[in-house]
């Protein structure tokens, strides 16, 4: 990686971190709705997507709600989504970022279908889907990964194993020693990486993307860490989690870890850190101001996009 790439990766991590931290504040201020926190997941999200080209697709779960930022999607769009405003809808084809998937693992077959569909057309393009450890218990995960494997589709499945599905620990989720082991059942490579090491995640994703492009089919990447924040703003983990362990995790958070690496390599100065953070904070400040200035949505939007060609009685209520 070049110096500028290493710094761009840092910029993306800081942008994601800032988005997340500001969102928790905005939620507490009543400015956005319930919000799924991704604090300390930035290494996975920025690292894995750094291996993609612009014509590759990203399939986020709600944990990756802001992942469009790495493609230049306006933070306003994502904030609108969390404000329950229809301006939070986007065109997946504009960013090659699918809509945020709320029901667990159900977007895994979408990624398989997109990757397979691109391949059938003779077009380039890899699909990268993100999901959590709990998702690997879902049928949709199994069906989607199996289908991608059978079709030799250029897909990369990134499992964010933060070891908690809301309050359910990983040992209550699976008897498998690792989630990466599940890849063997599909006849595809499974890789386990440190989910707080952005360069390790990037390297695993780069190999997987290269293999997919070369016709080698899908890869399952398990990025391991430990959830160091609540599942969402409505969650109180003190009821089920070991808070001492959480404190320990927070002390090793991934943005600071990468920052230390860049400083040691002589690539990052205090001035640069301050400027990257300020850019991200300015972006968020402008974004929240913009979404709050937007007019309330027209109730007509109840109907506008329910169908392309709506049935005549759709408005009977």
């Amino acid at each position: 990686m070049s110096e500028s790439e290493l710094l761009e990766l840092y910029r993306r991590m800081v942008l994601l971190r800032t988005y997340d931290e500001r969102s928790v504040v905005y939620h507490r201020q009543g400015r956005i709705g319930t919000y799924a926190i991704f604090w300390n997941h930035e290494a996975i999200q920025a690292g894995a997507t750094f291996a993609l080209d612009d014509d590759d697709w990203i399939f986020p779960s709600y944990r990756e709600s802001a992942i469009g930022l790495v493609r230049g999607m306006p933070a306003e769009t994502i904030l609108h989504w969390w404000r329950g405003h229809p301006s939070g809808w986007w065109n997946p084809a504009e960013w090659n970022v699918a809509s945020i998937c709320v029901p667990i693992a159900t977007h895994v077959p979408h990624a398989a279908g997109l990757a397979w569909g691109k391949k059938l057309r003779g077009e380039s393009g890899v699909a990268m889907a993100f999901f959590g450890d709990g998702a690997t218990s879902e049928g949709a995960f199994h069906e989607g990964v199996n289908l991608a494997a059978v079709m030799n589709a250029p897909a990369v499945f990134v499992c964010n194993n933060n070891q908690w599905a809301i309050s359910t620990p990983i040992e209550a989720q699976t008897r498998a020693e690792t989630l990466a082991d599940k890849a063997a059942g599909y006849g595809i490579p499974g890789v386990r990486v440190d989910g707080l090491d952005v360069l390790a995640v990037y390297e695993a994703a780069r190999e997987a993307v290269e293999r997919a492009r070369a016709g080698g089919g899908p890869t399952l990447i398990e990025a391991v860490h430990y959830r160091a924040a609540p599942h969402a703003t409505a969650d109180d983990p003190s009821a089920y989690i070991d808070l001492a362990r959480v404190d320990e995790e927070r002390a090793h958070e991934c943005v600071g870890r990468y920052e230390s690496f860049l400083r040691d390599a002589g690539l990052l100065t205090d001035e640069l850190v301050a400027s990257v953070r300020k850019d991200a904070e300015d972006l968020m400040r402008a974004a929240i101001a913009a979404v709050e200035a937007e007019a309330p949505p027209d109730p007509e939007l109840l109907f506008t996009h329910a169908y392309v060609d709506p049935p005549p009685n759709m408005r009977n209520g």
Partner: protein
Amino acid sequence: MAELTLVEAVNDALHTELARDDNVLVLGEDVGRAGGVFRATAGLRDRFGPDRCIDMPLAEAGMLGAAVGLCMAGWRPVVEMQYDAFSYPALDQLITHVGRYHWRTGGRMQFPITIRMPYGGGVRAPELHDDSPETYYVHASGIKVAIPSTPADAKGLLAAAIRDPDPVVIFEPKFVYRTARGEVPEGEHIVPLGRARIAREGADVTLIAYGAMVPVCERAADELAGEASCEVVDIRSLRPLDEETILASVAKTGRVVIVHEAPRTVGFGAEIAAIIAERAIFDLQGPVLRVTGFDVPYPYWTIEDSYVPSVERVAAAVRKLIA
């Protein structure tokens, strides 16, 4: 015109639409090498290749989920569910994604998925090969549903579904797959969604049905000749629903019997009855009656004839209205 069975007409529609539009794909379990368990997809793999008529792993939800991704890649997938009740795992994708994704993109992306499946009983099959699940599908937002009763409509409605910009589910009445024979236009043939068909004109009672219950109503009308003149309305499309044709018939006859195989409670007959009550109550000369399946699991086949609405049950309902 060629005389075809209903399932041959389905096959004809698929051949015609795959030839017309290179973006149309057929996927399902056993649709390729075997040509479908009912032969609905016969010949497609040989003619269009294994990349246009695709044998899928056994996973109904995964298959429908993959169809969402295929749409994102520019395809128009036609997904076969092998049997009615085998489609239930796919309701997850249908409800959470297929019917909502266009909306979720603010109308910027289309998901022109067609799902087709044989449905209904009467074929002496094991459990869960006989269901009439149309209510589940009509109730899902963003979905259209059509059910043909004749070979010509089977071809025309399926072609309309494939060309429709929204997701459409076609239920094919397997009981009459090979017994319904009729003239089918050759080449491209479209029956627009949302237009009911007057299968038979009459003056005294309106029988409203779809799918395999249309011929049952027609036979009941035959049996009642001399007692009552029955009009048979084949609604063909549950959503969009042609309310005007139903209401015009009710205005003419003032008496209504609605017939479907699905269980009674919240069956589609309840919706039709409610629409008639809201919009035509002063046209009625008696209660709106329903002849339906029962609120029980679809039975073992040795007693299925007691479950599926029969000519006798339909005729009895009509006699009650004209007494």
